[in-house]
């Protein structure tokens, strides 16, 4: 099972990380590594695009929380793009809709 991870530069200062596939305990470490790599490259405004994600579990949530924490401690931010109700539901259940800024589109996230 492959996790798709594509990095694209958005309008400065944003970097967009598009995630595709299933994020679970098996694949989440790759997402974590990619986030750590981006932060260490000085990308401190990261938009994680979850539109291509079919499945997201608590490990995936944990990695996103970890990324957010790392970025905030660098005066940056991690925001999310997600419109799929089954993925949004996982953020809602865990209360994380109050922790992350979640947008309808990458444009929406960069316009914020």
């Amino acid at each position, binding site marked *: 099972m492959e996790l798709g991870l594509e990095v694209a530069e958005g309008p400065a200062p944003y970097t967009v990380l598009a995630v595709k596939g299933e994020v679970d*305990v098996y694949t989440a470490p790759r997402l974590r590594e990619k986030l750590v790599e981006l932060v260490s490259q000085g990308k401190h405004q990261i938009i994680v695009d979850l539109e291509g994600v079919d499945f997201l579990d*608590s*490990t995936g949530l944990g*990695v996103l*929380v970890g990324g957010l*924490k790392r970025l905030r401690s660098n005066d940056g931010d991690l925001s999310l793009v997600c419109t799929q109700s089954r993925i949004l539901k996982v953020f809602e*259940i*865990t*209360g994380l809709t109050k922790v992350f800024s979640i947008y309808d589109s990458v444009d929406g996230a960069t316009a914020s």
Partner: protein
Amino acid sequence: MYQFELQIPPSPEYIAIVRLVVSSLASARRAVADERVDDLKLAVSEACTNAIEAHASVGSSEPVTIRVTEGDERLEVEITDRGPGFLPDALPTHPPVTDPARLNFERGLGIPLIKTLVDAAEFLPSPEGTTVRITLYGGPSDGGDETSEILRAVLADDE
């Protein structure tokens, strides 16, 4: 009424197959409403993750067993591990999401998710390991205000 059993090596890469099997069974048999299949899939996946971590913590390479039982208007999934067992009611709770310290907690979301997503979740520890029994009842979901109830459960978790 049928029973379906799966044994997987205690390794994270097999959880995707468990999800595939459970969601195929649940949607093929229509014992549960379509929109609940995703809930079941996530709950079972979380329980398998915990089972596999439990085996890792004791260095066990024994298989983890997933048993799916369909009864009248309900679907039951039991995930059985040979790990150290645990006391679900003794788990620590998270700071509220409004507290900046919340960001220090990257874990501990699995069991709250399981409890919220399914109609019944039983955690049955024994000296040989743990069985998590997850039940979904048939019929469409009630469409109630799930989210607020959910948030309350996660934030308070004061049982």
